[in-house]
């Protein structure tokens, strides 16, 4: 195995593109090193991206926050502006692993590991986050939900890697929330999860909504029908009940040791309802 720590994104993409064996990008390493240890992957090349300028920074730009691919979970949690603007994204990221893992793990790593149960992914999708990619053919951007295509598989092409995540500024009276079910309170993987982002009018009528589920399908699930049912409402009981049912209808989970199909489906409705109510309250109502 070779280890390289390039000083630019272009150099990194060249390394990744020219490697004929197995290559892995290293940022926080909390998935890659575990996979290496357990023999799931035996890389020929590790490209440590942490020396690329700006990749460990959170910056406010014109209309969005840019979070570098190597910014750790604890750095996001310590950022006042992000806590205020997208509390749901911060709480999702904060649920991943222990304090020690938080010191290293990254949003982009969580996304590129492509687990259906990734905590930060539904939350990022709910707030319309976009990823910036560098590859052999230059730069491109795409929505977060376009990255995972199957468990453990991403749409990134050979030589491509994600350099940052952009989270658009939220309008007034907007907020978001993320909830997951785990048997333990800490250090566990989501059995089901739900993220809801809302934009309300001054009078408390929902103008825009996005409802997203995790761990109930091979990839993150945007529930358009549930999002639409919220728009125009003030999240009254009847609307919340409809939201819950539409989420239940959208689930296509598997049964495994952590939860059955029936349990996951039922809990998805409960979590989406609760997350919607929390986001509503956070938006100031």
């Amino acid at each position, binding site marked *: *195995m*070779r*280890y390289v*720590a390039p000083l630019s994104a272009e150099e990194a993409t060249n390394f990744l593109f020219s490697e004929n064996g197995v290559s892995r990008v*290293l940022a926080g*390493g*909390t998935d890659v*090193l*575990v996979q*290496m*240890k*357990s023999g799931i992957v035996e890389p020929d090349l*590790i490209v*440590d991206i*942490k020396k690329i300028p700006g990749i460990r920074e959170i910056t406010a730009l014109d209309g969005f926050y840019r979070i570098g691919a190597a910014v*750790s979970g*604890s750095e996001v949690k310590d950022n006042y502006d992000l806590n205020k603007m997208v509390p749901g994204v911060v709480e999702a990221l904060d649920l991943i*692993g*222990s*304090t*020690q*893992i938080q*010191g*290293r793990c990254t949003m982009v790593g969580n996304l590129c590991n492509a687990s259906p149960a990734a905590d930060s992914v539904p939350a990022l999708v709910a707030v319309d986050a976009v990823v910036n990619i560098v590859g052999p053919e230059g730069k491109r951007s795409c929505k977060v939900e376009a990255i995972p295509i199957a468990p453990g598989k991403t749409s990134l092409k050979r030589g491509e890697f994600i350099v940052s995540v952009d989270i658009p500024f939220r309008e007034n009276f907007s907020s978001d929330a993320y909830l997951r079910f785990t048997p333990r309170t*800490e*250090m566990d993987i989501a059995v089901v999860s739900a993220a809801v982002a809302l934009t309300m009018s001054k009078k408390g009528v929902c103008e825009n909504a996005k409802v997203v589920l995790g761990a109930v399908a091979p990839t993150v699930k945007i529930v358009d029908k549930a999002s639409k049912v919220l728009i125009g409402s003030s999240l009254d009981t009847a609307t919340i009940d409809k939201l819950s049912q539409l989420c239940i209808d959208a689930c296509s989970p598997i049964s495994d040791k952590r939860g059955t199909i029936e349990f996951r489906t039922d809990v998805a409705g409960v979590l989406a309802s609760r997350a919607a109510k929390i986001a509503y309250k956070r938006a100031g109502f």
Partner: protein
Amino acid sequence: MTQVHIKTNINGDSIEFLCGPEETLLDVLRDKLQLTGTKEGCGTGDCGACSITLDGKLVCSCLVLGAEADNSKITTIEGMSDGEKLHPLQQKFLDHAALQCGICTPGILVAAKALLEKNGNPSESEVRYWLAGNLCRCTGYDKIVRAVMDAAKEMRG
């Protein structure tokens, strides 16, 4: 195999070492530098026995490559006491009998020190959440939490 040349600062001393590209920082600390206070439990970031700080951040050294440590500042359990004088956390762990077999203790001390540097007056639940990634199979955690709370109190003066 090509060895990587790394320059780092460990517990205040400038240290250079050569390591294989796949070698973890934990293996470098224990096997190359004889800093065996840092323990290996699971080797997959679940148990916290290998906790150190890397550029001020609490991390599992089993999930860091030695090669990544270039130009970094590391602290381990060996840097905790002031010579023979124990750190208040170490003394309180003795006073409260907050350990039995001791394998998890260095990691917990390093993690607790990182907590108290960030928050000198943590609540019991803050201590428990912060230490959720440090597993102990002997004590049942109660004495550990009490020792950390007591050390925090003493350090606040």
